[in-house]
């Protein structure tokens, strides 16, 4: 797979139109790319809407597991984006797809996660148990002897503000059975909230369970290929004519590189150009995938080429 010779190039001038003409689909990360919390990045709605007007397909690929596709579609609409449910690929939906079509679960899921995850998983016909507060009671020996639902075939961990020792314990008890699957939505260390604050992310909860159970989770979210596969399967994408736009080198850009997409780093979020250049200079093959083809200060800089 030949990568372009020039890497980490500022996307400016005629390059913008050149790039847009070479692609049919654009995949956008959400947090730090098209919105921050509950505020759209200025110009972002126009970018998406104009891309579609210009005949490009647009998809939204996010590791954030706290919303269903419907909830994302509502948020997109509220912020002025012309988008539909089918174009959204969040990890709540993709985890459900994974459990149904890859893991082919016959049975229930012990879910450490949000109501959104519960909805998406139950939408594909898989029952869940465990969502909501779960405080400790009794003494230590009781916890090892918590009653386990024999129909549970997988433990799934997503963002959960009700995470507690008892949930960690239940997850561990299920995972003591080596045939119980272990799925994590993503490994991001921080979760941006509406309103701009950030709190510890799902990665912390997945790490806690991985440590107690002494085995790794199967991770659905970026940079795992599965998120792209989900989109490609439903929409028949040609990776060579697709662009991944993201703000994180270790998730968005890595996913793009791994799946053979062109990659564009936007600087309205987490990663910086200096980070990207560090990866480039390192010469380390593991880090090469995190170097974007292009970077841009904000996706609003695509507007002139789209409006022209």
């Amino acid at each position, binding site marked *: 797979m030949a990568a372009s010779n020039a890497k980490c190039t500022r996307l400016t001038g005629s390059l913008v139109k050149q790039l847009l003409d070479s692609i049919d689909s654009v995949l956008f990360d959400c947090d730090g790319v098209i919105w921050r919390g509950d505020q759209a990045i200025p110009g972002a709605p126009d970018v998406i809407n104009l891309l579609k007007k210009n005949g490009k397909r647009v998809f939204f690929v996010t590791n954030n597991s706290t919303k269903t596709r419907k909830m994302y579609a509502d948020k997109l609409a509220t912020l002025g984006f012309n988008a539909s449910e089918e174009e959204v690929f969040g990890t709540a939906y993709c985890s459900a797809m994974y459990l149904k079509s890859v893991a082919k679960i016959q049975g229930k899921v012990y879910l450490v996660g949000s109501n959104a995850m519960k909805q998406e998983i139950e939408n594909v016909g898989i029952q869940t148990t465990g969502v909501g507060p779960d405080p400790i009671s009794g003494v230590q020996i009781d916890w090892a002897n918590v009653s386990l639902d024999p129909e549970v075939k997988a433990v799934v961990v997503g963002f959960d503000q009700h995470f507690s020792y008892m949930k960690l314990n239940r997850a561990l008890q299920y995972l003591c059975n080596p045939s119980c699957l272990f799925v994590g939505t993503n490994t991001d260390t921080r979760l941006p*909230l509406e309103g701009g604050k950030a709190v510890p992310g799902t990665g912390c909860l997945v790490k806690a369970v991985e440590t*107690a159970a002494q085995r790794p989770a199967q991770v659905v979210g970026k940079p795992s290929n599965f998120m792209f596969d989900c989109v490609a399967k439903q929409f028949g994408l040609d990776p060579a004519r697709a662009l991944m736009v993201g703000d994180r080198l270790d998730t968005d850009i890595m996913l793009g590189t791994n799946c053979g997409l062109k990659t564009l780093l936007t600087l309205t979020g987490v990663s910086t150009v200096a980070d990207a250049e560090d990866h480039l200079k390192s010469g380390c093959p593991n880090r090469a995938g995190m170097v974007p083809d292009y970077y841009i200060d904000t996706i609003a800089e695509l507007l002139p080429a789209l409006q022209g």
Partner: protein
Amino acid sequence: MAGKVGTRGCKKIRGAQIRDILDSKHNVLFDCDGVIWNGETVVAGAPEVVTLLKQQGKRVFFVTNNCTRPRENYVQKFSRLGFTDVVEEEIFSSAYCSAAYLRDVAKVQGKVFVIGCHGVQKELQDAGVPIVEDVSDGPDVSIYNFPLEPDVKAVLVGYDERFTFMKLAKACCYLKNSDCLFLATDPDPWHPLRGGRITPGSGSLTAALETASSRKATVIGKPSRFMFECIASQFDLDPARSLMIGDRLETDILFGANCGLDTMLTLTGVSTMEEAQQYRDSDASEKKDFVPDYVVETIGDFLQALED
């Protein structure tokens, strides 16, 4: 450097061999869980062994990562299980040593935010280390809006059955300040309970907080040297005349190696002879420190050696 690398060989010993080793040692350090007791069941002969060792002029210490109870409760447990002459000063738990570290080594000026059970909090209080009070949050407190105490100069994480996402979020905020210390009582990912069951350990909670804060905790408990240094600061210990007896290769035996002690694995707990042999036969040089010098079935086997 004890110069024992060549002879580290999992030597299974009994009878006169045990006597010869004990004769050469002045200090015997015992782990507790899986060595002298399992839950509330004493390992047969353990109380008599401790008494005989003391009668023969040896000093006996108990070095445990288990931070779930304060030292005074350990004294009661020893008494309950038939040990007639164990005093508080001989007991070194990771909670006690964490408090000692904060007070005497770090000399922390300010408060400590504790993620820990009653056992941990009591040891800090007994050592006179000010802690942030563990009070329930009011109804208007959420992940979007939570209060922080001023003047928090250290975060200590240990086993906490009341662990919640909120505690993780608060600790992460305190750790944003690089002057705020980050300590963990012990690294154990899980603890064994009766009947082969396990429960999540301090290590799993520490992993969550390390992931959230992108910082590494200073770990007080085995295999870190600090607990040995804590004992040595109160009693005059010559490592060459000290023996560490434990049941967990990755904590007790590695601890012994790190401190220059001879090590003995007892098979009444977590690790097996096969696991010890695997480390011995491994090509990786760092695995050598996981190999015990000696192996016994149970410390009850000391009786025959001591009574002769």
